[in-house]
């Protein structure tokens, strides 16, 4: 997944509410735990989500992200802990009274109603007068560009169109929070990318707080203001897409988002502004330009992204720091990138990526070449777990 480029996120322009201590969170989870029998699906999660955020819950299947979403919708009750929405405790509120709507993974359209009626359903339940229903339904139908299909039934629509109906149906009530359960999972890649941008536009237009569940890291990176990476019912890290990618807090997060090389080593020198790590796997001393909270001699891991590495035939000035030697094992040509697999002298395999800025006619570096792999001291991240 080399295409997972940290998004220069479109929402960076808006105020980063999570960094502002005076901001009240819009949705607050306090020590939420959910058990199914002996199985703990969600394990003591506390989380704040702010108004108008596009928040992603990212994790592999079975990590508890869907359970968390279903608790927000009210389909599951937390075993312990509280969920607050706009200051109100949601624990005792049944799903049909919550100001929250959900877009289901299967879309869950009503097969016996046409597009219009599907979308109008929620408003009808609230006793909205029918002229107003008409205008509001028409409004969302045009927002998702389904005007020609208003009278069709779900089975007369393609997958992409059904997805839009499901989105329109959950938007029409202008909920305080919109939950999206793998909303684009059933679409093909091209359509998915297009829809991601549409989702972002709609979110910006309506200002509704979106909480999306996904296992697709690229999708989460593209759309989110912040991402919570989950594993085994716990949140491992909550941060912006850029932070998650550039400053992961653990090997799990580093591995989950994109490709990464990880070298185990021991702390040799730990100062305020840098750290030196002796690594057998890398076969050199690793310097990272940030201090860490670990004693000398402690085992740590250094994560370096493939695109942040350089490959050279000649030795650099300082061949002992952030410099590994090895042999080109394999080259993958992806068009925009070339992926090099390099077998280090220590036996470790390293993946590095190179953008093909010039047209590749004849490779300067090719199979079986002895090479030096280097990276800048600020390119690597030291991980404690």
């Amino acid at each position, binding site marked *: 997944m080399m295409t997972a480029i940290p998004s220069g996120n479109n929402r960076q322009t808006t105020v980063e509410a999570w960094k502002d201590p005076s901001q009240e969170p819009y949705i607050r989870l306090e020590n939420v735990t959910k058990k199914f029998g002996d199985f703990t699906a969600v394990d003591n999660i506390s989380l704040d989500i702010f108004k108008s955020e596009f928040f992603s819950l990212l994790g592999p299947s079975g990590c508890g992200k869907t359970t968390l979403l279903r608790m927000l*919708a*009210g*389909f599951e009750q937390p075993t312990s802990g509280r969920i607050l929405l706009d200051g109100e405790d949601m624990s005792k509120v*049944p*799903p*049909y*009274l*919550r100001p*929250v*709507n*959900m877009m*289901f*993974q*299967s879309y*869950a*359209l*009503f*097969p*016996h109603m046409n597009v219009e009626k599907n979308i109008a*359903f*929620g408003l009808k*339940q*609230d006793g909205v007068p029918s002229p107003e229903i008409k205008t509001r339904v028409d409004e969302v139908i045009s927002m998702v560009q389904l005007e020609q299909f208003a009278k*069709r*039934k779900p*089975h*007369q*629509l*393609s*997958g*992409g*169109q059904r997805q839009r109906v499901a989105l329109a*149906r*959950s938007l029409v*009530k202008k909920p305080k929070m919109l939950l999206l359960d793998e909303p684009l999972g059933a679409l093909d890649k091209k359509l998915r990318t297009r829809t991601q941008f549409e989702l972002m536009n709609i979110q910006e237009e309506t200002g509704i707080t979106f909480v999306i569940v996904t296992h697709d890291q690229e999708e989460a990176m593209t759309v989110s203001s912040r991402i919570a990476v989950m594993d085994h019912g716990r949140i491992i890290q909550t941060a912006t897409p850029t932070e998650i990618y550039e400053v992961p807090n653990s090997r799990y997060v580093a591995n989950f988002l994109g490709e990464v090389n990880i070298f185990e080593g021991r702390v040799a020198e730990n100062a305020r502004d840098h750290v030196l790590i002796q690594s057998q796997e890398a076969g050199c001393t690793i310097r990272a330009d940030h201090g860490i909270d670990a004693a000398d001699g402690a085992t740590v891991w250094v994560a370096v992204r493939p695109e942040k590495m350089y490959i050279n035939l000649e030795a650099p000035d300082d061949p002992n720091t952030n410099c590994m030697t090895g042999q080109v094992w394999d080259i993958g040509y992806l068009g925009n990138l070339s992926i090099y697999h390099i077998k280090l002298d220590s036996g470790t395999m390293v993946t590095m990526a190179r953008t093909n800025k010039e047209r590749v006619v004849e490779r300067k570096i090719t199979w079986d070449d002895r090479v030096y792999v280097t990276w800048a001291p600020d390119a690597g991240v030291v991980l404690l777990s």
Partner: protein
Amino acid sequence: MRKGLSPFNIVSLVMGFSFLYLPILLLVLFSFNESKLVTVWGGFSTKWYGEMIRNEGLMDAAWMTLKIAVVSSTFATILGTIAGLVMVRFGSFRGRLLFSGMIYAPLVMPEVITGLSLLLMFVAISLDRGFLTITIAHITFSMCYVAVVVQSRMVTFDQSIEEAALDLGCPPMRTFFTVTLPIIMPAVVSGWLLSFTLSLDDLVIASFTSGPGSTTLPMKIYSSVRLGVTPEINAISTILVGLVTVGVLVASYVSRRQTLIRQRDERLAAAEAT
């Protein structure tokens, strides 16, 4: 791909179908017999149909049967639908297997035993046997058929559709009537038809639970046959066969048409998308 009809195939076909339909064909044929003797052809006539309509006993029994069938199948459908829903919805609990087994048991229970046990119960609570007892008995045994039909539909029902309704502000009870019921309606209707037919042609249980003045058509036919088959019986049987045939044909035509339309729509939608 198509194989020619070998003589073996033709013979099997003819034998199979004659085995199934020859008796019924004879019955229909002889209902148009001029002669009173059932086995001797005396020329074409529809007089037995007139006789049948004038036969008050026969008509009363037919009317009674129809009333019982409508009432019992309606109640059986309501109860069976609830049972079917509950069996799917409750998930697993201790004794689930026992419960589901107990719903299916009447399907394989010998009718004589069901009839007898119902009779014993009605006697025990000293309920006068008649229309009410037959109806109750029919509800009892046809309910499980409905439960089975509805349950098999519910297994493939996407539960998130109901959740979507709840999520959009529809309370559970209303969700059932506006979303769940319309979607499972075909299963409910076929359950109703099934129990209607079962009630219509039940002889054994009705004989156990009927009282004076409440004779159903199958009972009437059975008792008249013991005195000798009359062409009138052939006539009413022919009408029954005709009704069932038409019903089955219409039902299969409608469902076939629906599937075809649906498939066409889906193809169109997929073609448009590309």
